[in-house]
């Protein structure tokens, strides 16, 4: 009988096999960080700033320590930890270094910034303790908006950056670009703002830390996407050797980028655990997650593009200002958003001339981290608005304008000095339009008073950035490679480590499929080990759609190396040449006319080492690494969105959503579809609903789900997904990344659909979120 889910050609890759994560998660037997309880464990809660910008006059914790259940309370001076500092290798005119203290010292820079940590026997008592803290703050004028930051009229957020600018780069500036704009047939402009968002993993951040005297280690269980980076920063802040810190990641309830930077609370909790020699747990509550965690996405674009009369783009110019909040995040720095936008904005179009200025400004708001898509949802939206606007000005079909400009010859060397590997840019657009036409959406009208609108977005996304690509951003800490170690046990099963880290993406399943195919094993005979700095030599974690492209390729390479070892052993035992051996695809090695099963070979490798060749040591283990050379690989997609807009209320309902995606070879098609659907839901959230709003004093106005509207099944439509497959030439199995695309394409498609529904009114909206009230107000202002 065939294995369940095995493809007819006998391979696992490409089959939607049952997920190995599911049974424990469905039965309530997963282990998330808050599920961990240790003997004598204390609970941490943080005293936080009530002001957005203030000098700290005093932090008095004496009454805190009197609260029943409170065991200790520490401020910055008590813990005396080093700061968290992330750097770029850029000149001072392009980058201003700043640091983030673990606990604020002389100054607070956003409402919600941690000032002290309270440790108590239960979380309720810890909260009681927080209430008893006496903090004296001397308020300063807060810098709340991008405009205020750039005006730099009041006290700066950081003294090191008197102009409140942390990153300022001007790039490319193709020679003669001004002449192109001056002489072009048509120049169109877009000014767009995108709202501040919370990546919002449903599991908030959290940590359980303990000093383990037997291991001589600080053991930190925390839900992070980057365990090795947490180890490094924690070791530095606490003055410990790296080997004295072990970071272990339990089951993790989503991350979406918010957990791919190093936070301060986990370091403070770990320091308290070390000091008190008792385990300490901190679980962020939702109010903290919404106001004092890492946010993203607040950007301002001023862009223009030059076109011929036929709709061919001649030049693109953009000024991007990203409001990065109070601090630079580790390891990416405040450059994460402006550098991504600047480097990649031309996207899927043949743009011959390009000039961009990208800035990161610092404000008195909670800091930012990369969030799924990182700038790409924004610049794709701006590019797609430019295409639509050009089509309107020129009286052309907006899809024809796109077709005229889409990259169709690969590899393509862009004006942004990036080489794009093959994709299906044109094909995905054609198929997306065809699907919507066949379903009868094009040219359709509604008879309920609402207006139908159809919008598209075309984009590609670089996935699997190698160290070369990150080095081009001039990060001082350069992620890129990944490393896998594979070990075969006596019974012929294998265990594979990976430096990537699943938090919903199904790596226990998909990585097992990749390895199973290399060794001819059933996928349930492959165990994946992830998220433990003591078991994994080094890893960069999971972000930037890198896991399957980089981590999967490293796991595949390690499996192939192990296969070579098995063949060498079989050749020796069978007394044949290496060339006469081959893995038989069924868990054994053919050597001439004999076959050795894996358990037979493992038996020799471990239990009868005297039979091994003289130059071969005992055991069966191999290590391999993988780094993406060159500019990485690009996934691509076209999204099509159909909305019904009610002119009476400004309400928008999404009637249909179609995604034609190409992530190369899908290891597990159902997982890829899940990534696309979930990503699209987050993109729709940013387009229509979610925004972190502050008042003029810098107080967050959306501290609960009553104010921060996360869309539900009532707002998120069913999504039809069509797959195209342009395999990557250099990753294992030809896979490309699939984690972010949905989120990248959705805001543009939704916004274009809304504008299509408004086409007869003269109203054009370029900023998100497009709330019902925004549309209602815009329509009211239309002259009758």
């Amino acid at each position, binding site marked *: 009988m065939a294995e369940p889910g095995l493809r007819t050609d006998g391979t696992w890759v490409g089959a939607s096999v049952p997920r190995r994560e*599911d*049974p424990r998660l*469905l039965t309530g037997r997963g282990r998330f960080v808050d*599920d961990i309880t240790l003997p004598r464990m204390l609970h941490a809660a943080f005293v936080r700033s009530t002001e957005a910008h203030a000098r700290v006059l005093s932090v008095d914790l004496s009454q805190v320590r009197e609260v029943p259940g409170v065991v200790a309370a520490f401020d910055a001076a008590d813990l005396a930890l080093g700061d968290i500092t992330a750097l770029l290798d850029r000149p001072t005119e392009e980058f201003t270094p700043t640091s983030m203290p673990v606990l604020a010292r002389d100054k607070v820079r956003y409402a919600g910034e941690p000032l002290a940590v309270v440790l108590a026997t239960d979380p309720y008592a810890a909260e009681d303790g927080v209430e008893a803290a006496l903090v004296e703050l001397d308020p300063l004028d807060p810098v709340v908006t991008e405009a205020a930051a750039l005006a730099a009229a009041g006290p700066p957020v950081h003294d090191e950056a008197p102009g409140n600018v942390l990153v300022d780069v001007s790039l490319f500036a193709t020679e003669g670009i001004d002449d192109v704009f001056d002489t072009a047939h048509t120049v169109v402009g877009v000014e767009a703002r995108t709202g501040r968002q919370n990546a*919002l993993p*449903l599991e908030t951040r959290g940590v359980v830390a303990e000093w383990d005297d037997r291991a001589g280690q600080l053991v930190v269980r925390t839900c992070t996407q980057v365990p090795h980076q947490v180890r490094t920063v924690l070791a530095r802040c606490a003055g410990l050797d790296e080997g004295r810190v072990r970071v272990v990641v339990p089951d993790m309830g*989503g991350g979406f980028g918010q957990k791919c930077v190093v936070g301060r609370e986990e370091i403070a909790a770990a320091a308290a655990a070390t000091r008190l020699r008792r385990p300490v747990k901190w679980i962020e509550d*939702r109010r903290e997650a919404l106001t004092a965690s890492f946010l993203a996405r607040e950007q301002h674009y001023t862009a223009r593009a030059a076109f011929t009369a036929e709709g061919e783009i001649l030049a693109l110019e953009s000024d991007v200002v990203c409001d990065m909040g109070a601090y630079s995040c580790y390891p990416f720095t405040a450059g994460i958003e402006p550098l991504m936008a600047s480097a990649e904005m031309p996207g899927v179009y043949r743009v011959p001339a390009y000039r961009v200025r990208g800035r990161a400004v610092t404000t008195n708001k909670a800091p930012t981290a990369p969030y799924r898509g990182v700038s790409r949802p924004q610049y794709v939206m701006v590019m797609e608005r430019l295409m639509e606007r050009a089509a309107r000005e020129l009286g052309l079909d907006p899809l024809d304008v796109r077709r005229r400009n889409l990259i169709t010859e690969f590899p393509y060397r862009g004006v942004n000095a990036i080489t794009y590997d093959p994709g299906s840019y044109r094909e995905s657009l054609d198929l997306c339009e065809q699907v919507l036409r066949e379903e009868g959406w094009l040219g359709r009208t509604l008879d309920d008073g609402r207006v139908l609108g159809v919008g598209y977005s075309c984009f590609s996304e670089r996935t699997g950035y190698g160290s070369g690509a990150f080095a081009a951003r001039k990060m001082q800490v350069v992620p890129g490679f990944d490393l896998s170690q594979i070990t075969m046990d006596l019974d012929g099963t294998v265990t594979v480590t990976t430096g990537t880290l699943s938090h919903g993406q199904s790596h226990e399943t998909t990585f097992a499929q990749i390895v199973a195919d290399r060794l001819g094993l059933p996928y349930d005979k492959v165990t994946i080990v992830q998220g433990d700095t003591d078991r994994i030599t080094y890893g960069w974690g999971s972000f930037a759609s890198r896991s399957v492209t980089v981590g999967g390729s490293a796991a595949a390479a390690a499996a192939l190396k192990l296969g070579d070892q098995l063949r060498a052993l079989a050749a020796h035992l069978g007394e044949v040449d290496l060339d006469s051996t081959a893995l038989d695809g069924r868990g054994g090695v053919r050597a001439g006319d004999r076959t050795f099963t894996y358990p037979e070979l493992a038996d020799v490798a471990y239990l009868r080492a005297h039979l091994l060749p003289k130059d071969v040591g005992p055991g069966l283990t191999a290590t391999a690494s993988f780094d993406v050379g060159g500019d990485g690989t690009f996934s691509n997609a076209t999204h099509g969105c159909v909305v019904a807009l009610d002119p009476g209320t400004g309400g928008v309902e999404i009637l249909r959503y179609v995604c034609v995606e190409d992530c190369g070879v899908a290891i597990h098609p159902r997982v890829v579809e899940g990534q696309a659907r979930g990503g699209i839901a987050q993109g729709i959230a940013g387009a229509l609903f979610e925004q972190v709003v502050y008042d003029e004093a810098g107080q967050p106005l959306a501290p*609960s789900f009553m104010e921060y509207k996360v869309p*539900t099944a009532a707002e998120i439509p069913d999504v039809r997904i069509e797959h195209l497959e342009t395999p990557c030439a250099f990753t294992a199995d030809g896979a490309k990344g699939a984690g972010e695309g949905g989120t990248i394409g959705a805001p543009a498609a939704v916004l274009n659909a809304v504008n299509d529904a408004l086409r007869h009114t003269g109203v054009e909206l370029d900023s998100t979120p497009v709330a019902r009230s925004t549309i209602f107000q815009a329509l009211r202002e239309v002259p009758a």
Partner: protein
Amino acid sequence: MTDVALVELTVNGERHDLVIPPRRTLADVLRHDLGLTGTHVGCEHGICGACTVLVDGAPARACLIFAVQVENSAIRTVESLSGPDGELSDLQSCFAEHHGLQCGFCTPGFLMLAEGHLAESPDATREEIREVVASNLCRCTGYQTIVDAVEDCAGRRRAALRARLDGVSA
């Protein structure tokens, strides 16, 4: 705040005697006093629904209930769904088959929400199921496959019931 109450709770058919502060939520009691960590806490203000359990058969937010309030009720958590050997229930199997979960953090809440709703409305249409699924938040799936899973389970249960009735009449 040092006051404690003696509370008798019936969870998944098992009786527990607890000495707890009256302000302790049902979610915290289930998770930290009884060790039933399948019930998750996502917002502590009744919106996300990750902590959904059944109280006398009806879905309820365990983060909004004090344990002292439900002394005389039957409480069911996600741990009650599967068989004693860990065998998945029909509803759990449908979630796995339709990829109705990714990170799995919201999943116990959706399972208990669906379990309660299908018991009350076995004939629920896809639109009704979508409306019920809209009670809780999921950040990973985009909801479609959760609706698919619940709808499939409802259909299977109806088919099984019909088969039983046909067997009786034959």
